[in-house]
């Protein structure tokens, strides 16, 4: 038997090498910290999540308690964001609105991903006719304006937070399918997938063990972006009056009422919930863009 110590062979080995995933995770952490966009996005998003989770503790008032004599008061020490037409504290309502936004931001990508990722994997792995049919189906969903599709679905399902999340999830399925398919197609072409097939591995095993892990980074970025889009879409639906039913304070529904008071000078009624939407969406978008840069070395300007 010839010896196998060719080239850089089996000479002294330093400490136990880390798995490529662990090494990649470390490199990821390093690159993430250096990416200001990503860090900024993470901070804003973390702040948003924290405020949402701690809303019951932080809110000075019960967001549903009506205090008619104190209605439509401007920002003050007692009511930092002012009060609404029933005298409810807008600061507390915006804080509680963050809870709705957070639920939407977390659940929508989960729902959309749960359906879109498998579709994308199958389309990318099987290819051919199946790919064509699945992706054209996705395109046809994609062709509907998101807001129109969301409106229709909520009208069909009925108004509740769960139904809205499901509706938003359906709206964003095609994006997950596309992103996953895109990654899967390139991985499927790789030699190790062909080798796995030549060894008699089952399709399910190949897809789950050898293809899916390589799609995760793209899916993660998509989830972040979808979170931002979902917040906007939920707010839009609430603004149009088909969102989370009152009295639950959603940013969009506060805005809807607040817009009636813009002309009469009660600016705080719409400005603060509007700003909340902007900040939350900005946070997720920055995080998403930052993640994309960090996960894909080719687009990272801070490399």
């Amino acid at each position, binding site marked *: 038997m010839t010896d196998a110590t060719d080239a850089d062979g089996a000479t002294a080995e330093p400490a136990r090498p880390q798995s490529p995933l662990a090494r990649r995770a470390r490199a990821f952490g390093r690159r993430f910290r250096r990416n200001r966009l990503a860090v900024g996005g993470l901070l804003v998003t973390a702040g948003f999540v924290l405020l949402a989770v701690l809303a019951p503790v932080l809110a000075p008032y019960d967001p549903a308690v009506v205090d008619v004599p104190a209605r439509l008061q401007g920002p003050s020490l007692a009511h930092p964001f002012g009060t609404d037409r029933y005298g409810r504290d807008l600061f507390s309502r915006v804080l509680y609105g963050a809870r709705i936004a957070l639920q939407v931001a977390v659940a929508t990508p989960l729902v959309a991903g749960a359906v879109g990722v498998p579709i994308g994997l199958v389309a990318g792995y099987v290819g051919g006719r199946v790919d064509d049919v699945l992706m054209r189906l996705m395109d046809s969903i994609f062709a509907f304006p998101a807001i129109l599709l969301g409106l229709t679905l909520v009208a069909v399902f009925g108004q509740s937070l769960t139904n809205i999340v499901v509706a938003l999830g359906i709206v964003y399925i095609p994006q997950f399918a596309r992103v996953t398919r895109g990654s899967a197609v390139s991985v499927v072409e790789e030699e190790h997938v*062909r080798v796995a097939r030549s060894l*008699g591995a089952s399709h399910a095993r190949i897809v789950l063990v050898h293809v899916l892990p390589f799609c995760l980074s793209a899916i993660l970025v998509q989830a972040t972006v979808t979170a931002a889009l979902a917040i906007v879409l939920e707010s839009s639906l609430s603004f149009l009056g088909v969102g989370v039913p009152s009295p639950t304070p959603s940013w969009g529904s506060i805005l809807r009422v607040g817009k009636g008071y813009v002309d009469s000078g009660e600016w705080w009624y719409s400005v603060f919930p509007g700003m909340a939407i902007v900040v939350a969406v900005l946070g997720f978008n920055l995080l998403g863009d930052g993640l994309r840069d960090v996960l894909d070395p080719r687009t990272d300007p801070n490399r």
Partner: protein
Amino acid sequence: MTDPILRVRNLRTQFGRRDPLVAVDGISYDLRAGETLGIVGESGAGKSVSVRSLVGLIDEGEVTGSVEWRGQELVGAPTRTLRGIRGSGIGMVFQNAEAAFDPIETVGSQIVEAVHASRDLSNQAARAEAIDLLEEVGIGDPAGRFDDYPHEYSGGMAQRAAIAMALAGEPDLLIADEPTTGLDVSVQAGIVDLFRDLVAEREMSLLLISHDLGVVSQLCTRIMVMYAGRIVERGSRRQLLDSPRHPYTGAFLRSVPDVDVRRALEPIGGSPPSLDDPPSGCRFHPRCPAADAGLCDGATPPTVGFAEEIDDEGHEATCHGYTDAHPGGDAFDRGAVDWVEPAPSEVDE
């Protein structure tokens, strides 16, 4: 002589329906247990596609003809059947060994996976088997290297590990597709020795594909020469190397450096034909020095059998040069012709 374990008849693989590209155009051969068969030819001759077609590893293309594995038809067989044969009946080793492994899993775990795919063993037994396999292919400290990741293996070691992975299902036939290409010459020699040992010890058959005649002639007792999707000559190693009968085989031999003989290399003029639009008649005729206008560019060449003194194995070439219609010449020793079988008339087109 025993029955062949692999019997290929008129295997044809084409890609695309409109304007099909025929990568493999009707090849036939037998492979018996323990036999070593080499397929040589230039890049793009269809060698790789022809072996991938055997076990249904062609995705977009269409495979026709017949492939019998131990009497069982594989062309058109359900995926379940093919999966059972992949790995445990027919193992495969490919060119780029480092890419053969999933980069995010350890080499050991992937060999264990391959063991599990075709054999019912406990995790512990599968791990022990994987370590034995790594040892068998000559990896030093197999237990220590078991948990290494593919990038920690050098090219030659990765190829050995890929061979171990292909052996995990205890295949009766190992198909090696350019297994030494891209490796250092010294590493190549080690891999060639390894194949020779494995074939002898495991009594398995080897189907070796290479553009490197040196590697093929070291390992294979029988050799087929493929050109533009067809087999143009076949015979024993000695027959092909000592008395090539097809002009392409001769040209191919003269284009390879030989350490023992100092002579100028003769590149084959022109370039391999595009398979989108292969030449009519004999596909080698545009590059063939002895091509006869009106004959070689028109009719599909007949198969000519040769009576050889060297071996009693069949030696065949598909060439017009041995027929009376061709002016002949020094390149064609008509005295050796044993029989001539006209080409089957082309049905399609």
